[in-house]
């Protein structure tokens, strides 16, 4: 069971036979599953992303899944659901993670294009959601040139367009080296360090990720132009959401549950870490993504 957008994304990623049966459920519609009333609500993470709310015997439990609070031109914004129990993610659950305004971050890219017009600007961005968001933010900043993308992004870009996200002029990478001087090329993060990137003239390696606010991470990856842009809530968004919803209990999954628990405790909330198996600190915003 998923939103129509999510089902479409899964079909693109895993083939049309990705599941034996699929049930499509639009945001806000309620269905009854074995006596539990279930509904999906926008999470603002990527296109089609949803929180799941389950109601039974007068109690509402909502699982946020991955979410963010700030505006994203590629997907529906997060909708707060009043809940007794709120299960929150905590990928960026440390107070050092405060993502700056998107316009500031995309401005760094635009400024660099002006400053280094002879160099290709290679932007590593997760193929689902982040890549399209970078493209839309560039458009909003007035950048109307063709954006070049790695082949791995083509299908998802088309899918986003079919859901009404207008990405402007873009094409997959082809041509000779000099064609890419001063151009923006968007590729999955792993392609940046790959031999694939050698076709570009003296590339400025940029990376759009929430992890880019920490310099050690930036250096480790050899990134020259960090773009702090995340599809996950930052510390302020996480804590503001808990304050706004003020649930009876907060359960915390993947990420820095220790720090967010500490905050909840300081603010008089009942919180517990779920310690779900199979989630690493970084699993949720993949630093490396396999391509090929």
């Amino acid at each position: 069971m998923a939103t129509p957008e999510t089902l479409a994304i899964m079909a693109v990623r895993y083939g049309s036979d990705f599941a034996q049966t699929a049930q499509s459920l639009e945001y806000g519609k309620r269905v009854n599953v074995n006596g539990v009333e279930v509904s999906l609500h926008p999470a603002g993470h990527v296109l089609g992303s949803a929180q799941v709310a389950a109601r039974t015997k007068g109690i509402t439990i909502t699982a946020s899944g991955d979410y963010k609070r700030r505006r994203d031109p590629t997907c529906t914004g997060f909708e707060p659901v009043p809940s007794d129990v709120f299960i929150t993610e905590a990928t960026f659950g440390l107070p050092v993670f405060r993502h700056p305004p998107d316009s500031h971050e995309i401005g760094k890219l635009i400024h660099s294009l002006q400053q280094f017009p002879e160099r290709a600007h290679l932007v590593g961005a997760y193929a689902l959601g982040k890549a399209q968001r970078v493209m839309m933010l560039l458009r909003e900043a007035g950048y109307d040139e063709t954006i070049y993308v790695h082949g791995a992004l083509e299908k998802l870009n088309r899918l986003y367009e079919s859901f009404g996200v207008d990405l402007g002029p873009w094409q997959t990478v082809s041509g000779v080296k000099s064609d890419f001087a001063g151009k923006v090329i968007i590729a999955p993060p792993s392609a940046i360090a790959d031999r694939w990137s050698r076709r570009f003239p003296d590339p400025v390696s940029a990376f759009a990720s929430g992890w880019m606010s920490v310099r050690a991470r930036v250096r480790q990856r050899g990134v020259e132009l960090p773009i702090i842009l995340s599809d996950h809530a930052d510390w302020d968004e996480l804590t503001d959401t808990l304050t706004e919803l003020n649930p009876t209990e907060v359960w915390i999954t993947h990420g820095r549950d220790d720090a967010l628990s500490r905050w909840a405790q300081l603010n008089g909330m009942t919180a517990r870490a779920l310690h779900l198996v199979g989630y690493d600190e970084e699993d949720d915003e993949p630093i490396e993504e396999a391509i090929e």
Partner: protein
Amino acid sequence: MKAFAELLDRLSLTASRNAKLRLIRDHLASVPDPDRGWALAALTGGLTFKEAKANIIRRVVEERVDAELFRMSYDYVGDLAETVALIWPTLHGANREPEVSEVIEALTHAKRGEVYGLIENWLDALDADGRWALLKLVTGALRVGVSARLAWQAAADYGGVDVADIQEVWHGQEPPYVDMLAWLDGKGERPQVEAHGRFRPVMLAHPIDETTEMPRLNPVDFVAEWKWDGIRIQAVAEGDIRRLYSRTGEDISHAFPDVVEAMDFHGVIDGELIVLRDGQMGSFSDLQQRLNRKTVDAKRMAAYPAGIRAYDLLAEGDEDTRPLPFSERRARLEAFVAAIQSPHLDLSPLVQIEGWEELAELRANPPEGDARLAEGFMLKRHDSIYEAGRPKGPWFKWKRDPMLVDAVLMYAQRGHGKRSSFYSDFTFGVWTTDEVGQRVLTPVGKAYFGFTDEELKQLDKFVRNNTTDRFGPVRAVTATPEFGLVLEIAFEGLQRSTRHKSGIAMRFPRINRIRWDKPAGEADELGVLEGILIPTGT
């Protein structure tokens, strides 16, 4: 502060020298006085504030943030200034952002008790990048990979002048260098450089090509000096001012009080800074005990006494001797040094040239004594005036042939910038025998140049095809007696080192040749390197 913060941010993450130059040049072009001059002062290490210390910053943040959350964050980020910059809770409606000049002005005049409040207010007014830049600025530890020389080069590029002009003008100016920048803008005169104690841009030599250039030169026109293995310095003593400059014009006097005290003269000497014990030169590793230090204690000075081996005289009294021919400067230098009579100063002897072949023989087999520690010869024309920069023709350096060793590639690390998609930093090892009698490789050095672009592609391919293990950006490659890649490494010398497992450290290693043909098992043994170790001093 925004522009300065962005500059520091970009510089700290940019590997390419040209890109760094452009970033600084653009900053000088787009930021008004006095902030651009203060930025230049910060980049060249010219700013220190006594009262702003790390413990104040820690106290400020502990007032604002839960100690437990701060500890978790600091553990994660690993750097105090960065943690504070990121964790500082934004206060909406805070004060206007301070300009760089306001920060510097306020800190310069602040009393001890006032610093805390100033920093707290500024942190409130800035964003995360700004806070990071502020904390770097006030603690004086920029560490953005920019040398003073690079900053001067950028200023020279900006003004369309020679870097030697900047160096000459620089030490007569005070931050924020308004007059100098006006001159670079083309809106003012070149500032006067008559100031006592200023740096004179140095004259450098070209390497000589033995096969093509040397036969065309007449040995009668030249004189030779041993090329000493120390660091080039300029000793300036004029009026009350005594300064010791590095060859790029950085003032390093504070680390060599023993030398500065001995500079009892009026003039400017060009020479080599070495460890000088009873007229005998120490090894380069002795000298390293004195380098890159802010201060030095008496014990270290006694164990490693520094001195100047003089080879040129740039000013005698207030007379500029640079326009004189070398032979005349040399005669004056000999008398000048003889008159000073200090154990911290001696004269670099001249070597008369019978002919190039005789000199080659001497270069290969230097006589007993300090000459054994020399790197080769300097060749100087009798009639050469002292010109800034690296003019072609008057001076040559003729280095000894490098030492060579065949080593096996063990690890490779991804490069930066242009090379970020290449494995371009290579760790290599030689054979030794471990505790259980097994023949194993021990790493002896790391090289990241010496190869062509084409060879880099081949090396990169070898690494990718023979990877056995990965650690972050580093790959281990197959390296056994049966299979591995042999690299012929050229290097300038060896020293004992306690930091390296093999017990040795190479100077200036680079890849001389890739020995695709040579079986890994036939690469050299550690014993070969131990045989050519330079003995260290006391």
